[in-house]
């Protein structure tokens, strides 16, 4: 059994479990074996002094839901070995929040153009600093801070 750091409850009555980030892969594997077969989403929250990774689980047999959270400073183990759907969710979390998933097969930006500077959903992302995207001949994107080099 993986130790649980603390427990809480969300306003809609779903249990929230905090786990140490080293144990996250093992803990989610246990939960998956217990019947939580659905990984609905992976997301992150930027609390300025630390980041939090949030996993929403669902058991399609009992209909039970569970939220698992882990505090991190920017790195955590990938759960792509447990759920195939975790692949895109982790890429998105990396793209928008800059949380690195160790062991992810293809951790690249998914929504923004490759080469974008910064992670926009971080609270300290500079919204006034515009970036401009253009297209190379082979179809890949280029990103620059110069207005004349893109759109």
């Amino acid at each position, binding site marked *: 059994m993986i130790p649980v750091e603390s427990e809480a409850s969300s306003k809609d009555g779903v249990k929230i479990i905090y786990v140490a980030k080293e144990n996250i892969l093992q803990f989610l594997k246990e939960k998956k074996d217990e019947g939580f077969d659905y990984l609905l989403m992976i997301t992150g929250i930027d609390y300025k002094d630390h980041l939090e990774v949030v996993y929403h689980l669902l058991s399609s047999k009992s209909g039970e839901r569970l939220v698992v959270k882990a505090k991190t400073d920017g790195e955590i183990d990938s759960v792509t070995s447990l759920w195939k759907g975790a692949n895109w969710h982790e890429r998105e979390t990396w793209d928008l929040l800059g949380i690195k998933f160790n062991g992810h097969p293809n951790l690249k930006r998914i929504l*923004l*153009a490759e080469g974008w500077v910064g992670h*926009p959903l971080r609270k300290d*992302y500079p*919204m006034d600093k*515009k*970036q401009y*995207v253009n297209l190379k001949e082979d179809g890949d994107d280029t990103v620059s801070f110069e207005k004349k080099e*893109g*759109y």
Partner: protein
Amino acid sequence: MSDNILVTTLDEALRWGTGKSLWPFTFGLACCALEMMSAMGSDYDWARFGSDVFRDSPRHSDLMIVSGTVTKKMAPRIRRLYDQMAFPKFVISMGACASAGGPYVRGYSVVDGVDQVVPVDVYIYGCPPRPESLIKALKLLQDRIADGKVKH
């Protein structure tokens, strides 16, 4: 050339013909694309106004309807599609997003207006504009083509 009465009349006839046989490009970006499809659908049927079939290739079409938010990742692709269209070519900017960024203008990845990417002939307001607005824009564009006042 314009002194020659025969050529000017021919030119006028050509412009009249161009306006009445616009071939729009099947190019949906976001929400407005659904209203564009409604305009093409049974109730509004904008084929009545001489803009008949939506073409699937930019090389077959001469009217680009930018229907939706232009993101930074998409903008260079829109430019490339525009460049691939054959002359004469016209652009309708449909809705608030394509015209000026709309509700997303404060965001980090949205171009504030498609006119920074391609030259626009007619802008339509609304979020999304109703199909009637699109038909009005089409009529407006036809008038402008007949007057020779288009950018391309």
